[in-house]
């Protein structure tokens, strides 16, 4: 299964991954458009990340009433078919990792789509905190 691998324990908290992800996805610097989010813990230093784990048996897919979540053959990750999705939000509630996000512009949620196999967050991280295993 293609997936991001995130080593939160060596994250410096620079936020580049989140900022660049949002920029690529929306063309904006929009904290709510990022599909990977850095949860900074400024006083303990123990930051962690919210991102799609590309589960083998994804809960989001399981609960989807219209079967809108499918495997993208190019990236190898799970993706939402926006033509089918009805925006019920069940997948947002079901994801154990909080990695299915509400969108500002539409009722259709969004998630990490692995940027079609070349994730922008991986490119943005200078420290190999985030790697892509295809």
């Amino acid at each position, binding site marked *: 299964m293609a997936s991001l691998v995130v080593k939160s324990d060596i994250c*410096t908290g*620079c*936020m*580049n991954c989140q900022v660049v992800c949002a*920029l690529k996805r929306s063309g*904006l610097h929009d904290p709510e458009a990022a599909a990977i989010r850095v949860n900074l813990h400024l*006083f*303990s230093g123990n930051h962690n990340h919210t991102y799609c784990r590309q589960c083998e048996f994804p809960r989001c897919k399981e609960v989807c009433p219209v079967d809108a979540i499918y495997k993208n053959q190019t990236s190898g990750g799970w993706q939402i078919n926006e033509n089918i999705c009805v925006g019920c939000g069940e997948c947002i509630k079901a994801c154990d990792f909080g990695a299915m996000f509400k969108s500002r512009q539409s009722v259709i949620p969004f998630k990490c789509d692995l940027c079609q196999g070349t994730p922008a967050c991986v*490119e*943005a991280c200078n420290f190999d905190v985030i790697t892509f295993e295809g």
Partner: protein
Amino acid sequence: MNYGGYAGKLLRINLTKATVDQQDTMDYLPDWYGGRAMAARIAWDEIPPGTGAFDPNSPLIILTGPLTGTAAPFSGRTTVSGISAQGYPVEWYSRSSFGGHWGPELKHAGFDGLIITGKASRPVFLKIENRTCTIQDATHLWGMGIYDSQKKIMEEFGRNWRVFSIGPAGENKCRIAIAATETESASGQGGYGAVMGSKNLKAIAVHGTIPLTVAQPETFRKVCNLIRKEAHGSHGWPHTPKLDRNKVKKFGERYQACTQGCAVRCYDARFYTTVPAVLQRGKILSGQVDCIAGLFPGLKGSFYNWKLGFEAGFEIGQIANDLGLNHWEILVGMVPWIRFLKNDGVISKIDGMEINLDNPEFWAFLLRGIAKKEGSFRSALSEGTVRASKILGIGEERVKQLFPAWGYAGHWDGHGDRINYVFFPYWVVSALQWAVDTRDPISSAHGYGQNIMGWSKICSPELGLDWNTIKKVSAKVYGSEKCADPESGYTGKAFPVWWHGQRSVMKDSLTVGDQVFPRIYSLKTEDNFARAGNMEGPSFERFMFTSLTGIPWSDNDLEHASERVIQLERLLLVRNFNRSRKDDESVIPYFEKTEQQTNPLIAQKVALDAQKFKGVMDEYYTLRGWNTETGKPTKKTLKRFGLEKEAEEIAEKI
């Protein structure tokens, strides 16, 4: 908003009247393009002569820049400007800056910055969220340390809030008081924490989710990626440091960005998660250690060889942060001064306590007393070492050894501070930078002295460049090999001060990190000149600026706008403080002392030759278009920068 990157609004807060107004950022764009540049315009318009740091109407100007919080690497910084409480011999207009995540959060809350005037009738803090700002009661926060006040606000509003606050030192108007965010990111120099305290302003809490637009999103992302990948190791130098295995195991040492967007691992930015307290027994401490704070434990074999040990040194550093005291003043100015006075037999105790720098109890007693103005000696120290020496009537000669000018301790100048390695002729540039500034000029000096030393084999023995390469690469920037030639003496030293002057303004206005920009040297190109894609290193900032904002400036346009800031700042100093060449020359005696380190190519220690230095000053004034006798901008120069009206206003002074 016509341009990308900006939030579009500025907050104007009058604490006396308890009013909050909004102004369009566009009023200042594009000429005064952010941060320090915008602050200079505001200061000229709104700070009349005679305004002191603690006058209620003295504005505290806190501004981000267009790049702040964007995908631009090293771009998390915020600039603080206004009349400086630390400034000496007079409180005058100056600046400071800080990193962390506060500036980006402010922009997502809808604001590029704040201009705060007045004085609240009781302690208050500002709550800023998604285009709203309210003045809130801070009585329950007053007296708290910087950490507790942040935590208290975050407990109430949420973990995603960012808080910029002062500690007891700021509340008590200690002239070396900082304002800070997180555990180490501070507006350290300038005493702006005291200015906040004088306004009864405890903290500024921000949170926002508003998107910022980008003029050319795909170009901007690609430009930023290329520049981020070009970044080298610590400080942008050739190599990356390693973590200390022992400290990783014992104290959870890890790298942590000291500013959002940082893309290097630094010698000087480490986070510790589990440090057992020495003074507060039983407590486990965590926090960041940046830059000069690494000196708290003491540095064996150096001038700073007190023996606190890591745990106690870490704890003292955190105490200083929490109280809100300026590390740079304490570690390379005040404490060495105290030690000199003890060794000279001038003093043995401070307010009844034996001076013992190996004893953490003494440090805690010293710092708490300064922040809270306890005891006559520590109350004097709360005014900063230079003023304390006058108040107490002791140690003036030692002050002259440690403090080049303007109330600030030595910094990358080869004389005062003895941890930064810079030798003749490179500190001639530092001396001139000190001469024409209002504070320690380090936001310029990192780009020259630190950069050359860091890229040389002196500081980077394995990967550093040889002198010949450094000369050749720097000639692409400065126009002559003499400007960075280790054997060039006083020749070619004015131009780097002129050039880095503009670069300093750019860094504080866009904003990007001073340690890394401007990019000059590289290990990733054949000729060792920094490049990324088709961009040359010195143009990196401009490429990011234009693709983000859509302002179609050339390198020359950005440089011209940045030099305009220097002209207006100088004019403000002339108008409000009668600044002249005579003031600039006051730094000379400090540099006439013999340097601390030795240039191996000269093999002997050197002191400043005042006559030759005055020649370099002449060159600099000529480059700037300032009168070489008075050091004031000429009318012709001011016209070139579109500042005719300003020139007219103070015609009799120039």
